[in-house]
């Protein structure tokens, strides 16, 4: 199979636009309609919520935590945070051995949800007793976002500087646009997932995005490196577009194998791993796939487009 990426670059750029548009639309729609005015549905890490604490007399409550999580989710409690609090010896009274803390979105006072959770708790742990219901604040503030964004912007400047020295400025710019492409795609997908399947983003989502960014740049550089090398040998014989095509074909097996191995690990984590990290793994997995796509079809097309434009300008 021989794919002529350069010849079809407009189609690939159009495909990228089509891939990103639904997500961007979902983000705009979400920003307007959500009460939080965020482009994605944010979880209780950002909004705060309600914590219910149940006292139980079992000393090894971890065994049933998985069951409890499944039951809670089945009755409509989304993404509950379950944590065991061990009661220190001096505070143990009335056979109270440990506390299970259930953290979820805001529950209004006197609503039926509390009773529902209590009945699930008592069926799972006989004699569970509701000790405390309290509202809890966010663990991730806007401060963290602001700070991370500043750090990230400076990191991007660092990447642009290094790639400009080692390659050319337009390569650096294409690599960064590829990064933006990938991040936008993931944000878009999760915005859509939030709209239709109530998927919420948590602190781990930021980590997943960082991973996607890291991979995106890494993958693009490998393709560009081949272009740089081939330019050295064949720049007299071939046009820039041909060299880009040729280089992509040479690195194709590697590109596919690398993302395949990483996706394999993540797929195992997605299918067999814990529920609490499932969305996190999904974000990384999609990021690796789109990152591979963008470095082959998006970034390379961009550089070729710019070079072609520059040549035409020169000729004119």
């Amino acid at each position, binding site marked *: 199979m021989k794919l002529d990426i350069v010849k079809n670059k407009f189609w690939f750029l159009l495909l990228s636009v089509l891939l990103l548009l639904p997500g961007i639309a979902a983000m705009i729609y979400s920003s307007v309609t959500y009460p939080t005015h965020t482009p994605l549905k944010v979880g209780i890490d950002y909004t705060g919520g309600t914590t219910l604490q149940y006292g139980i007399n079992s000393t090894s409550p971890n065994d049933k935590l998985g069951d409890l999580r499944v039951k809670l989710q089945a009755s409509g409690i989304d993404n509950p945070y379950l944590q065991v609090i*061990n009661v220190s010896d001096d505070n143990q009274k009335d056979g109270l051995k440990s506390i299970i803390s259930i953290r979820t979105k805001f529950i209004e006072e006197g609503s039926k949800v509390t009773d529902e959770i209590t009945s699930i708790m008592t069926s799972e742990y006989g004699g569970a007793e509701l000790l405390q219901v309290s509202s809890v604040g966010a663990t991730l503030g806007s401060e963290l976002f602001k700070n991370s964004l500043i750090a990230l912007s400076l990191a991007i400047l660092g990447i642009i500087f290094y790639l400009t020295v080692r390659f050319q400025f337009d390569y650096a710019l294409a690599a960064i646009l590829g990064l933006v492409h990938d991040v936008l795609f993931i944000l878009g997908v999760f915005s859509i997932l939030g709209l239709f399947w109530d998927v919420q983003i948590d602190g781990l989502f930021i*980590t997943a995005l960082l991973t996607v960014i890291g991979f995106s740049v890494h993958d693009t550089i490998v393709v560009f490196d081949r272009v740089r090398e081939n330019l050295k040998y064949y720049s007299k014989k071939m046009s820039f577009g041909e060299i880009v095509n040729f280089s992509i074909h040479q690195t194709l097996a590697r590109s596919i194998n690398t993302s395949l191995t990483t996706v394999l690990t993540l797929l195992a984590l997605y299918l067999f791993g814990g529920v609490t990290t499932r969305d996190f793994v999904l974000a990384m997995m999609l990021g690796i796939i789109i990152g591979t796509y963008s470095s082959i079809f998006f970034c390379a097309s961009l550089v070729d487009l710019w070079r072609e434009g520059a040549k035409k300008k020169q000729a004119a």
Partner: protein
Amino acid sequence: MKNKVKLFWFIVLVVITAVYFIITKPTKLGLDLVGGSRLVLEAQTTQTMPVITQDMMNSLQFAIENRVNKLGVAETVVQRQGDKRLVVEIPDVTDLDKAKQFIGETAELEFKKLAMVNGQMDWVSTGLTGKDLNKAMVSSNPNNGEWVVSLDFNNEGAKKFADLTRELVGKQMAIFFNGELQSAPNVNEPITGGHAQITGGGNAGFAYEEAKQMVDLLNAGALPVPAKIIEENTVGPTLGADSIARSKFAGIIGIGLVMLFMVAYYRFPGLIANVALCIYGVILFALFKIIPVTLTLAGIAGFILSIGMAVDANILIFERTKEELKAGRTLFTAINSGFDRAFTSIFDSNVTTIISCIILYMLGTSIVKGFALTLALGVAVSMFTAITVTRNFMHLIFDTGDLKHPEWFGLKKSDIGDAYKAVETKREKAKFGILD
């Protein structure tokens, strides 16, 4: 020839050292993975502040977060609970007593002067407080070597301090910390530079730890209201013990699949890459313990990405070696040029990653920091294992011999040499612009 063998023994030595550290040093895991201590703080009303407002709680939370971060612990949780409580969760690795002391202190610094109050001389506030500080540092007094706390005022603080010292020339000025008199020096002349020093109250001056704690507290900011620890428990992992057990199992399956793929696709070199990957894991894990790095899920994400990059380095090299073999080169040259030609791309992509990690680590907070640290370490170690170790093993095993078994490299006999022509003709074709 000899260098090869020397390098091999060096690798063995590194692995043994790494294993030694893995066995002897404890693993530090974060709050999300193993849990830790949970402190509940309650804001206390005082005579001057009879009501706790939400604004006060906001600044209390901010100040506590600042302090917990100063403990140098990875990813802590500070969370509002109800109207006047804060829940602080810190990983097991922290010294709980120290943390408690640190969190509970009000850290109020005040400059006072003597004035007549109700017919009695007493210290009264001057309006200059810890809020006017830019930074505090531990330093030593050059005259007697005692530890002192150096204060660096911000612009407004410097002006206030200059005015105050001008007013008090020839008189005493006192420095109070948490309501305790630290020192009451005589002011000889106005101080306009915006710097001041606190010497210890006693004859022996500060102990270093004392000065250090005061500095940390001053830099983290005073608590707007006093807070008391009202509850103290240990907690399980925030991600849920059930989830973590499953993810461990899944991670092992995932890595197993990758190793299987490497052998199935790249055959013998794939096997060597797998050995290198194991060495990589051992060295990195040892580093995590030596430094020590408190591992959280964010850190593990960085670790996973670095594994991907380490595997990628080997894939790049082997694809290149295969190309060179197909082009009819001898085994020795093919291996060498496989490494050499893949090196620039591995180097550039890794340096880019490390640059961004350094920036993220210096400027980022909690999650971002943990991620950047493990990724940077992972990438640095992978430069050694995926390149040096793999190359050494390949040379030791194949030496300068001929390619007797092309199937070891996942190639057929008929592939070799033929492809060379194919590539050449393609280049020729390309010259005339008929690239398919």
